[in-house]
């Protein structure tokens, strides 16, 4: 950074010096260069970009490099022999496939449920209710809490003997279930808790989109003879697509980060069978077993997965001119 500045200064001084008798041609190019918006804006976005770029992009590159080593245990990685061994292992590890499957189930079910519930909440709130703000605050409240905190609540909620969830299903004469213990239902239970935490978030996104739809649209469809239900179905909801897309992307990424929740609910790196996802598997391999290289390979898989979501989204945003 310093060197760049010094260079700039020198450059400027040179051009100044030349003004006395120097050619106007070079003076104006230098000047133009200095006045160039790119150069002038660089001090603003440059430092944040470098900081962020190092920690995000350099780190991902580094991570990829690590995944090619056979780095385990202590000491440093040996970068001299690189191969794709860890990726082969990745493909052969049945636990990875299971984690991948769980990750997908989590992503899809969680995202869709959140979208549906969030939409419902948003429509309810959009209907001019009194205390709408208060309701919104309450519905969004869980989102403000840490995964670690909400995990404590849900451990208690899901408690087999005293948990409220079992008491509730007990009303209908079923259960008790071992929500966090039964491999068949543990993922569902986790998703439910996550939906509890994030549906308010989805609601807020939808609400903003709903409110940006001009009143005219509602009125036009009413005058056109549509009932409230039909109005939402045919006129309003289709217009929420962009909100849905951006909410889904964020939800998917929240789901990919559900590590915190699983860690806290299961009290460690190893979630209950049926609830292991790539994120937990990755941290477990790397930090639990010191299988750094292998962990890095899983991390790359996770990164590719999220890229598959982000890239189309970014491209879409770009073509819509939202960037």
């Amino acid at each position: 950074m310093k060197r760049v500045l010094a260079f700039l200064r020198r450059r400027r001084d040179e051009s100044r010096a030349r003004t006395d008798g120097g050619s106007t041609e070079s003076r104006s190019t230098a000047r133009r260069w200095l006045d160039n918006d790119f150069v002038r804006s660089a001090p603003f976005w440059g430092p944040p970009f470098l900081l962020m770029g190092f920690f995000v992009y350099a780190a991902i590159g580094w991570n990829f490099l690590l995944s090619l080593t056979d780095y385990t245990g202590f000491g440093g990685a040996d970068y001299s022999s690189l191969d794709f061994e860890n990726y082969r292992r990745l493909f052969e590890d049945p636990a990875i496939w299971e984690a991948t499957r769980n990750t997908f189930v989590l992503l899809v079910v969680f995202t869709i449920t959140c979208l549906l519930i969030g939409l419902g909440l948003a429509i309810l709130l959009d209907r001019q209710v009194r205390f709408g703000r208060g309701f919104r605050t309450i519905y969004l409240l869980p989102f403000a809490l840490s995964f670690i905190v909400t995990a404590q609540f849900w451990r208690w909620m899901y408690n087999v003997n005293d948990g409220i969830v079992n008491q509730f299903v007990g009303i209908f004469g079923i259960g008790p279930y071992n929500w966090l213990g039964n491999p068949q239902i543990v993922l569902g239970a986790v998703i439910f808790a996550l939906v509890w935490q994030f549906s308010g978030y989805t609601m807020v996104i939808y609400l903003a989109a709903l409110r940006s739809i001009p009143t005219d649209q509602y009125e036009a469809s009413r005058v056109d003879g549509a009932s409230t239900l039909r109005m939402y179905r045919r006129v309003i909801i289709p217009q929420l697509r962009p909100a849905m897309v951006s909410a889904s992307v964020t939800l998917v990424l929240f789901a990919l980060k559900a590590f915190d929740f699983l860690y806290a609910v299961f009290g460690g790196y190893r979630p209950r069978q049926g609830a292991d996802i790539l994120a937990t598997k990755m941290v477990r391999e790397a930090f639990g077993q010191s299988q750094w290289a292998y962990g890095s390979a899983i991390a790359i898989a996770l990164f590719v997965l999220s890229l598959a979501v982000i890239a189309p989204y970014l491209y879409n945003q770009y073509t819509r001119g939202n960037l």
Partner: protein
Amino acid sequence: MSERSVSVGDETSDETTTAFDLRRIGLYATMLGLVVFYLLPIESGLVTSIKTSEALINTQPFAPPGPAGVTLEKWQFAFDTLWSGMINSMLFTIPATLLCAVLGSMAAYGLTLVDWRGQVAVFALFIAGIFIPYQAVIVPLTQFWSQYAMLEMRLGLLLSARSATLLELIITHTAYGIPICTLLFRSQYKTMSWEMIEAARLDGATVWRIYKRIVLPLSIPMFAVVFIFQFTQIWNEFLFSLTIIGSVSDPAASATLILSGLGEALEGVDYPLRMAGAFITALPTLVVYLLFADEFAEGVEV
């Protein structure tokens, strides 16, 4: 909220009064049911946290204990355990929040209100940064801090081990917070009048002066939003705490990290203690959230 005319939502004019009332009642009943759904886990945690072990066994999990069954002992204990973590969390959350906001605002300004080719590409890199799963960088990150930066060793004379760890956390959280802050600020700057910026240029102001005198004062409301949102995010973060701090007993351990190990003892899982701990840990974010619900929601919306 108030712009849309009343009739859009509730069909005042078109339903007969009773039908309308029934509808409204149904609507409010649904909304209240949802309130129960969203608050129950929290409420149940709250009442549990003040129960004696007697009351814990004898009362419903969501019911408050009788006066005899109330004890603040768990809160006391949780507070004692978490206290240092709360301080640590504050120590890295607040500086990181401020740094994120300032750097994010600068980046957004450089990428929005100064017009140059290719800024979309740079901005896309910022945006993508928001969505990077932390797992994808966590190994190099911990390697970087523990084997390459080694602040604790290099700055050993200036910093205690605790401060070194906190500094690592501040830098880490700042770096990963910049993208979202940039996005938030940019969304505001994009709505800022381009003509106004040009007017300032014609008025003779340089890029820096425009930032200082026009853009910065106008982004104060957005700073509030970013502070609130980012504070919550950083406070609530866990993975960095887990990997960079590593140990619950580290003098730099954050509140979330300590909470994750709270209440596990040979004698059994102490739910009231865990709940009390959860509330204490959540307290700062809860306060911020309840005081600034609107700003928070605004931060989320973008």
